[in-house]
């Protein structure tokens, strides 16, 4: 009898857990918790750091706005896989940024049309101009997502170069007496001669002169430099000739060949890290964090928040292991566009609200509140007196202790809450003095630099990373073209070609760099490359380019 009872209990337990599994998971969806705070959920299809549940600034923002969002990020998968899984399951978090797969979310009917609501929320409505809002309209004429990063309030303020560049450690530049480095040949000569004179770090660890990150979608560190080397900006998938308004394939230009040939030579000399093409992203970050790597191509956001902070907290900045960007082009005397001013309006993705969110008004109200200046200051500057001080002139600044805190990952998780994938401002604060974000506040930025960086910047007569490269305005209304190629799927011939090209490049670019005989390797690559029918892809890009130019003309 006892046995029967036990098994009956077990079965009931099993069945009830099965039934519970079918029901909608509790929490989120604007449910109000015990403190009267609405709680939403959000998923962002990019890697990110989760903050603690009792994060202090998150609670402060919740007090002000009455809302709180539990954010989760991509772990391990690609953005497409994560979003595809959501669509297959049919249930979504309240907020979502689908990255490259935003269009798939729209096509699956998962998103709420924001333009039906936004008139009631002035901060959202005024976030973009009508022209910009129109660029966000999908095929049904509605707007489903808000790009978070391109809005500049007032005068643009930039100190950091948040984008791609050839980076080099300050110790290399210092050793060589801060030379002008403008070409790939000069760059690699410098690294080579430094490494010959100083093959190890202070503690005896061998240097890695140059490494290439090539892990999955992050292989941009290998593949897209030819566009920059030719003096074009980061259109990402093609070059756009601003004179003739035609797209050019940067994979096949003479510059591309020269670039890969150079890498091939350096690989054979042992300057390029032999593990480049098999290392994972984590291994790459670990390498960078030890300060062993003298130089590489990467996007600032891809390495700085992890490896950059690690270098600082290990005290390696004193050995000159921090990175600065160099204005490198294929030949001497060209204008480079590693950095563009004005922000890149990436219409292909942004923050969206899903059909699973039962309280759309509440969610939009929260986004609206996040854009208010006081909340924005809380998000990016923190709490006055704790994370920043206000000077007599009204300018915000941080004490050295505060700076150390803000680079400390456990402090960040417990205290700071950027809501970094919600809409935000760059540029100047409403008070007309401060920058919207501390990293772009000139005085604060410069004072916060390590001694070695200051020495380096002084030697070149600059004050910021951006000035190391120089800046030019964004080339035209089509920019950036990657916001279109990212949305291509295999349902069009151009998309199929784009997909195949990606696969071929993943395999053949490393082979080309490692080839014993570069010419033969390059020929093999070009042969396979041309079999992908790149012309299908290019013609679709050309059509999109013309569409964008035409649309922009309407507003002039």
């Amino acid at each position: 009898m006892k046995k029967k009872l036990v098994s009956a209990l077990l079965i009931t337990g099993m069945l009830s857990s099965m039934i519970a599994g079918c029901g909608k998971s509790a929490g989120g969806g604007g449910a109000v918790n015990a403190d009267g705070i609405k709680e939403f959920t959000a998923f962002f299809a990019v890697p990110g750091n989760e903050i603690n549940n009792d994060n202090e600034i998150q609670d402060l923002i919740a007090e002000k706005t009455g809302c709180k969002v539990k954010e989760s990020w991509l772990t391990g998968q690609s953005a497409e896989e994560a979003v595809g899984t959501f669509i297959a399951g049919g249930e979504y978090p309240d907020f979502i940024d689908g990255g490259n797969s935003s269009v798939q979310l729209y096509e699956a009917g998962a998103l709420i049309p924001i333009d039906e609501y936004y008139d009631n929320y002035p901060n959202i409505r005024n976030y973009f101009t009508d022209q910009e809002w129109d660029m966000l309209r999908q095929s049904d004429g509605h707007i489903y997502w808000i790009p978070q990063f391109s809005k500049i309030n007032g005068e643009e303020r930039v100190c950091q170069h948040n984008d791609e560049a050839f980076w080099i450690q300050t110790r290399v530049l210092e050793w060589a007496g801060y030379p002008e480095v403008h070409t790939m040949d000069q760059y690699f000569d410098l690294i080579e001669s430094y490494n010959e004179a100083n093959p190890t770090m202070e503690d005896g660890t061998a240097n890695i002169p140059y490494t290439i990150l090539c892990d999955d979608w992050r292989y941009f560190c290998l593949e897209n430099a030819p566009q920059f080397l030719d003096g074009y900006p980061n259109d990402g998938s093609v070059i756009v000739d601003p004179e003739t308004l035609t797209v050019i394939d940067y994979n096949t230009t003479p510059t591309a060949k020269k670039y890969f040939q150079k890498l091939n030579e350096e690989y054979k000399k042992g300057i390029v890290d032999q593990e480049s093409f098999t290392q994972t992203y984590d291994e790459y970050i670990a390498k960078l964090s030890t300060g062993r790597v003298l130089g590489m191509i990467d996007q600032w956001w891809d390495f700085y928040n992890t490896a950059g902070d690690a270098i600082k907290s290990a005290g390696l900045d004193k050995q000159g292991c921090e990175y600065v960007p160099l204005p490198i082009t294929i030949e001497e005397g060209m204008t480079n566009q590693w950095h563009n001013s004005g922000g890149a309006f990436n219409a292909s993705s942004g923050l969206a609200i899903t059909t699973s969110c039962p309280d759309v008004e509440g969610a939009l109200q929260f986004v609206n509140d996040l854009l208010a200046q006081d909340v924005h200051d809380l998000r990016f500057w923190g709490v006055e007196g704790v994370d920043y001080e206000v000077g007599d002139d009204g300018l915000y600044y941080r004490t050295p202790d505060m700076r150390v805190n803000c680079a400390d990952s456990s402090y960040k998780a417990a205290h700071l809450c950027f809501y970094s994938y919600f809409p935000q401002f760059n540029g100047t604060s409403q008070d007309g003095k401060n920058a919207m974000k501390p990293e772009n506040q000139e005085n604060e930025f410069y004072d916060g630099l390590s001694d070695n960086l200051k020495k380096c910047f002084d030697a070149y007569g600059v004050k910021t990373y951006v000035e190391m490269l120089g800046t030019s305005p964004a080339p035209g209304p089509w920019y950036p073209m990657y916001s279109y190629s990212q949305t291509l799927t295999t349902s069009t011939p151009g998309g199929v070609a784009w997909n195949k090209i990606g696969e071929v490049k993943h395999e053949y670019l490393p082979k080309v760099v490692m080839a014993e005989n570069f010419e033969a390797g390059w020929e093999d690559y070009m042969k396979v490359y041309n079999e992908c029918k790149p012309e299908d892809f290019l013609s679709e890009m050309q059509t999109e380019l013309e569409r964008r130019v035409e649309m922009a003309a309407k507003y002039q």
Partner: protein
Amino acid sequence: MKTKKLSKIEFKHQRVLIIWAAIICLYGFVFYYVPLVGWLMAFQNYKPVLGVFKSEFIGLGKFKLLFEDESFIRVIRNTFAMGVINLVCTFVMAILFAILLNEIKTRGSKKVVQTISYLPHFLSWIIVTGILHDALSGSGIINELLMNFHIISKPIDFFAHEGYFWPIVAFANVWKETGWNAIIYLAAITSIDPSLYEAAAIDGAGRWAKIRHVTLPGIKPTIMILLLMNVGNILNAGFEIQYLLGNGLVQKVSQTIDIYVLKWGISQADYSLGTAAGIFKSVVSIGLILVFNNIAKRHGEERLF
């Protein structure tokens, strides 16, 4: 044999059993058969917004697309190759290991060896691949050993060569699963009647002869059943290990059907194509089991059904 109808009295007596059985049947139906409705997707141009019941029917179009795709043929090859290599290696190693372990006569050391050997089974693949990636990297332990013994002069980048990939996967599988798989054979060996060994000893059999003529025939039924069950799993050659260890340079030999399904079905949002590839995999697996079961039947060996 005549099937007897269930009489009322019997039904009354077995009421509880029948109810339990019904619950299990219902469970099986709901969780194994109802989801198969999703297979309809493979014959449609499935759009999530329309759902399974409203999407447009296109017949076998997706299957046609699948078999015209060179890369699908390649992933089938990879899956089969890795499946067979893994099966043979893990299978042989497990039997070998069980027999060797059985020959150890001190109980203590036998227990210790056995425990250590099956512990890797409880590690997840992400950890195993992490260890592998570290051990086989340019500055990893394997390269260091080989260099110290002057077998090679320059570190080998094991993950950059297509030729090394399948052996690495097989090695990882053997390392992880040998101890665990051996448990069942050890159990089978202990159930062999000791008098058989005594009889063999009287007949003058040494260790080797005992293994050949007593131990191996004794566990033969177990071997056959496990072999049959594993044959059905050949196409489950793996997903995690290939996904985690693969890179652009070896993608031609590393991608399996499961990775293909993920790539097209989920990443490219072509759920129909992904489902079609999945169906293909299931059908081939069922076919394999049937064929091998038949072969076993014909040779009068132990079989599944």
